[in-house]
């Protein structure tokens, strides 16, 4: 007869699993949200005010009966308790407002909280009822120890409007049970764990009602009582699943947790209290949304590249503003840039109608470049700030205002170069030298968009005065294969004002043209 604990070997009951080492290498923080049904309901936009001001309770149908799940503070103060039939509650508080529990709402709220909790650890699980499980052993040092971390989590949840009971234990299930039982004292070692778990009432284990009844009829009220039973007897009477859960709580059986995977995009909306076209008010609204984006980036270690800002008009139309960032940016430096870009864009946009709502959408990418900060905490930009500059110029002046230049191996002057619309992508941030493959001849610094026909004065070409040919001719004959056949004699010519021009004579039409200026 091997008792459940201590793990005395008993060949008949099968091998007893290995116990947890004295100093376990995992630490689970459980955030138990006892009021989640109420809080998830109150978090809806339409419900904000009434949740605090009138006696209210969330209820659910169970068979034929309607049971209270979570009363709010006012209702609880007047005797409404969880598990009470709705009729009894109404007898106590006749003006009680009953709202039907919505599980999808709770799941969504919990998923959102799990994404939020990603800022503390990447291992967050939201698959155990009203609780989040965070594996925090690896985060303790970053957050200056357990107490500081717990305080930070508590502050954050309070700001979000959630009541929380926290517990810490070396196994996930133990943390969950302790949190449900309200044992907030952190449990970090195995002897502590045994002691803390032994005192937990079986009500808090989340087992089915019948199992609890059976245990109570057997006179077992705490986990400690259960542990005194023989293993095989316990498994036979209550099912092997319960035995495994006990083993998991004590770390003698593994309990893999499914990690919460945050969504890959960020979306948030804001309804404005009044219709406006005022850019500064709109910006203020967007600041709130950017804050949300910043938190999302922080908690997911993500970066953004494109942000879509939507302005909703009362007639259902929308104005779309896309902010393209040249480089993916993470939280602190990137979100700092966005308001400035948006301001430039808003100033350049005329709104067709007043705006009633704002929305922000962004795809989150894994962070690409580990961005450093220098000694003074300044964000180091590998290109000396050119990305930012180009983004700002494009935001105010339009998408195609900045261009670079490159040579092409081509004799016709108008085709001997090309515009580079995205200089950073093509040239990179490192400095380089020009293309040495093209043997260069004297060329003007300015090119006219199209050759300008020149008039004649006393038989000689003229442009603000008669031209005198200084140098030439240089004959260029090319392009017969692609239809752009040219036969030209090029000259350098000066006019009386001192402008040095690049002119040519078309050898077929004998007409003179101005193509460039030596500036």
């Amino acid at each position, binding site marked *: 007869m091997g008792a459940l604990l201590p793990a005395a070997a008993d060949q008949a009951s099968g091998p007893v699993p290995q116990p947890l080492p004295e100093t376990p290498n995992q630490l689970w923080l459980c955030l138990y949200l006892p009021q989640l049904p109420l809080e998830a309901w109150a978090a809806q936009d339409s419900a904000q005010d009434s949740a605090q001001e009138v006696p209210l309770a969330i209820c659910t149908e169970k068979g034929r009966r309607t049971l209270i799940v979570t009363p709010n503070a006012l209702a609880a103060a007047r005797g409404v308790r969880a598990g009470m039939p709705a009729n009894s509650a109404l007898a106590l508080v006749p003006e009680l407002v009953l709202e039907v529990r919505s599980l999808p709402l709770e799941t969504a709220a919990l998923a959102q909280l799990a994404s939020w909790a990603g800022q503390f650890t990447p291992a967050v699980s939201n698959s155990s009822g009203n609780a989040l499980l965070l594996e925090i052993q690896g985060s303790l040092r970053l957050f200056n120890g357990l107490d500081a971390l717990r305080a930070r989590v508590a502050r954050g949840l309070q700001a979000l409007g959630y009541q929380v009971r926290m517990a810490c234990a070396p196994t996930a299930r133990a943390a969950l049970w302790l949190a449900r039982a309200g044992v907030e004292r952190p449990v970090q070692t195995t002897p502590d764990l045994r002691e803390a778990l032994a005192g937990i009432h079986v009500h808090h284990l989340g087992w089915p009602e019948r199992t609890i009844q059976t245990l109570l009829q057997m006179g077992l009220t705490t986990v400690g009582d259960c542990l005194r039973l023989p293993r095989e007897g316990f498994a036979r009477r209550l099912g092997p699943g319960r035995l495994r859960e006990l083993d998991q709580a004590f770390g003698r059986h593994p309990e893999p947790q499914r990690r919460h995977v945050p969504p890959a995009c960020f979306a948030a909306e804001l309804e404005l209290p009044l219709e406006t076209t005022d850019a500064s008010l709109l910006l203020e609204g967007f600041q709130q949304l950017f804050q949300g984006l910043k938190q999302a980036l922080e908690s997911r270690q993500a970066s953004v590249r494109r942000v879509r800002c939507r302005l909703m008009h009362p007639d259902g139309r929308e104005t779309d503003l896309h902010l393209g960032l040249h480089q993916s940016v993470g939280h602190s430096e990137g979100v700092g840039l966005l308001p400035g870009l948006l301001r430039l864009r808003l100033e350049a946009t005329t709104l067709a109608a007043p705006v009633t709502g704002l929305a922000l959408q962004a795809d989150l990418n894994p962070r690409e470049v580990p961005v450093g900060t220098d000694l003074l905490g300044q964000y180091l*930009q*590998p*290109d*000396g*700030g*050119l990305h*930012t*500059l180009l983004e*700002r*110029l494009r935001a*105010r*002046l339009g998408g195609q*205002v*900045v*261009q*670079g*230049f*490159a*040579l092409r191996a081509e004799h016709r*002057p108008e085709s*001997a*170069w*090309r515009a580079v619309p995205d*200089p950073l992508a*093509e*040239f990179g*941030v*490192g*400095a*380089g*030298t*020009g*293309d040495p493959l*093209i043997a*260069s*001849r*004297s*060329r*003007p*610094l*300015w*090119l*006219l*968009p199209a050759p300008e026909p020149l008039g004649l004065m006393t038989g000689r070409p003229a442009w603000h005065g008669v031209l*005198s040919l*200084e*140098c030439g001719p240089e004959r260029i004959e090319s392009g017969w294969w692609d239809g752009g056949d040219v036969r030209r004699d090029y000259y*350098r010519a*000066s006019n009386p*004002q*001192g*402008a*040095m021009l690049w002119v040519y004579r078309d050898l077929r039409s004998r007409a003179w043209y101005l193509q*460039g*200026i*030596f*500036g």
Partner: protein
Amino acid sequence: MLTELLVAGHGSGELGLLSPALARLTTQHPPVAGSWVMLIAPPWIPYAPGLYWQGLALNRVLMVSVRQPLEALWAMEEALRSGACAGVIAWPGTTAAHQAGHSLLQRLHLLAGKQQAWAVLIRAARCRGERSPARLRLQLLYLSPTTLQVEIFKNGWRGAGTVIVERRF
């Protein structure tokens, strides 16, 4: 530092005069991060083979086109503020700098000094009488098809003077 270059008309040799300095800025060794040269609102298309022939590294040269003259000055301020540019040359048109007023030019001057960038404003010759924060003010005069006269009429606390420059073609 802010340099003002007064010209009789666009294309009278100003870019040719600046290009040896720009060539040096774009081909610094070892390569420097903020070594871009930005041409803002130029009167015509800067011709890549010509720039290359004058020795500029083309992959360090950017052009910004604007719709309104005042935007050219705004872009110039942004370029200087960013610290990404070693040289910023702007052709803001004849009236823009006058409209923008002294304070904007002062700001450009301070920014250029702070970022160690070379800012050049190309302005019309009739702006010569206006007050300007530029440390160096030059006027280009035509002498002959191959030579220019550069009149230095303000050079910090040093004296003014005149230089004859041979044009490179």
